[in-house]
């Protein structure tokens, strides 16, 4: 058997829609590949992939493996695990990186056990040790207050899922060679999960939004003025965990450790107390404005402009001012 070499990146798509976080991971893999002289291999599974294969080939990979099959159009835990296992056995990558999205985390958890391989979950840094070439990652824990440096001690491929927004996707000056792979008959047989219905609506990529207005528990779930203000300043909307727990907004809109990390230039935080797992999600933002009735709220320790006021009163006036005083 050949030795384990190179860095592979799982490029996630669903129904022909590329998961942007994959390109961030691919870009990082490209940097590591150049530094450590390792080939970078993108792996894309799906159906009718021409456009996204073209796009994916531009982010630093040397080769792009494409598996085109109608059964792979949507993510299916069973089918994707089998096909990825086949490809890992064939290409034997030393490192395998995936975006830390729901689907890729599902896949990574299965593959790690299948290969008896190490896996660092939703890391906020991924590197290779200069001396022993082991995968080194930074893993946030305990609500994001504490970061652990984690190394792989055993198993190949050395795996990590990388939190969306950790790295920036950058176009490369080279294009990956596309390799079309066919998978052996039988790899997709015996599936035990059958898709019956799927409903999605387009949503803004919060991790890339320039301006975000966040609603906390202090809004009591009344988001009308928040939405109006956000639309006036061209901002996306996010919520804190209690509001997502209440089912007011899907978890895709939740800011913090179990949700999205923002990189916005401007963030308004209305009625959030400032729990560590939420503050973690805004730590990389530019200017943060917080509005809260409680002067002692911890959020004021973690923002640039602090406003002690009733958030609804302030929102009404902000909306009026933005409309030219009318």
């Amino acid at each position: 058997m050949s030795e384990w070499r190179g860095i592979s990146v799982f490029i996630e798509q669903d129904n022909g829609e590329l998961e942007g976080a994959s390109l961030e991971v691919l870009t990082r893999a490209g940097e590591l590949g150049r530094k450590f002289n390792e080939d970078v291999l993108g792996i894309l599974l799906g159906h009718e992939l021409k456009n996204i294969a073209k796009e994916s080939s531009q982010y630093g990979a040397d080769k792009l493996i494409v598996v085109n099959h109608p059964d792979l159009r949507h993510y299916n835990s069973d089918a994707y695990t089998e096909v990825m296992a086949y490809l890992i056995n064939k290409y034997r990558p030393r490192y395998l990186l995936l975006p830390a999205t729901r689907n890729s985390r599902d896949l990574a958890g299965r593959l790690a056990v299948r290969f008896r391989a190490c896996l660092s979950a939703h890391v906020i840094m991924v590197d290779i040790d200069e001396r022993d070439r082991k995968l080194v990652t930074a893993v946030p824990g305990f609500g994001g207050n504490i970061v652990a440096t984690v190394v792989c001690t055993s198993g190949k491929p050395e795996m990590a899922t990388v939190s969306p927004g950790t790295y920036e996707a950058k176009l490369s000056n080279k294009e990956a060679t596309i390799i079309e792979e066919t998978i052996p008959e039988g790899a997709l047989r015996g599936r035990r999960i059958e898709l019956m219905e799927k409903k999605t609506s387009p949503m803004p990529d919060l991790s890339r939004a320039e301006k975000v207005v966040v609603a906390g528990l202090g809004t009591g779930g009344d988001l009308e003025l928040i939405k109006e203000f956000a639309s006036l300043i061209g901002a996306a909307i996010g919520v804190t965990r209690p509001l997502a727990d209440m089912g007011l907004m899907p978890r895709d809109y939740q800011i913090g450790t179990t949700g999205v990390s923002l990189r916005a230039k401007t963030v308004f935080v209305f009625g959030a107390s400032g729990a560590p797992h939420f503050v973690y999600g805004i730590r990389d933002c530019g200017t943060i404005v917080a509005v809260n009735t409680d002067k002692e709220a911890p959020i004021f320790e973690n923002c640039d402009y602090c406003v002690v006021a009733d958030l609804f009163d302030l929102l009404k006036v902000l909306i009026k001012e933005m409309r030219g005083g009318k």
Partner: protein
Amino acid sequence: MASLRNIIVTMKVTPKPEEIRFDPTTKTVDRSKATNEINPADKNALELALQLKEKYGGRVVILSMGPPFWDQFLKMGIAMGADDAVLISDRALGGSDAFVTSRVLAAAVKKIGDYSLVIAGEESEDGSTGQVPPGMAEWLGIPAVTYVSQVTDAMEDSIIVKRTIKGGYETVKVKLPAVISVELGINTPRFPDFERLQWAQNEFKTTIWGIKDLGIAENEVGFKGSLTAVTELRELRPRERLRQFIEGSPEEIARELIKRLGLK
């Protein structure tokens, strides 16, 4: 009407994240002063299991891997309505990563046996890897559906579940037995029944197994059996912020903010 067999709910006890302290000198995490609680998503998993039992029958068995004092938390689950509880407790397990945890839990699921479903919380509040549910499924050779928000129907050999995906949901039919992980907050966990709690605390006996009972060797668990190692811990301090209070009438504050942020 389908009839479910054992519904095994995995449960972990976690320290409240906001009460964890970090000692920068020793670079260790101090959990001793933090309040322990049943991992929030695991409570949702238990509630779902109890609802399924009410509708489709079956026995709800709590399964946990941790120190002996977790027993009191498992008994809260018994008081909520679970039928049985198994705690895997062994000194050798200290330092186990998600790989080892999924292996030990899967071995315990096999030993409990006769199961239709394993239900887990989507992730734990402390480690929050989310790797254990799909890992268990792989050890058991059964399908897994992660991030489930609802079980809409159960048949003899399969269930239909709603799973959260980016921007929406999908409905999938999955063959039993299966592992599902449920999202935090999908239901409101019931309160423990007072009389049942008295009974659980005084008479109920949690089954305690060590790794030998599961046929697993010491070098396969704990730090030795783990495939990842933590080499350093550090505190992630949020960036220093301006922390300027803006005061005045709402109009003055609004104008000041609009000016400073260049919103117009």
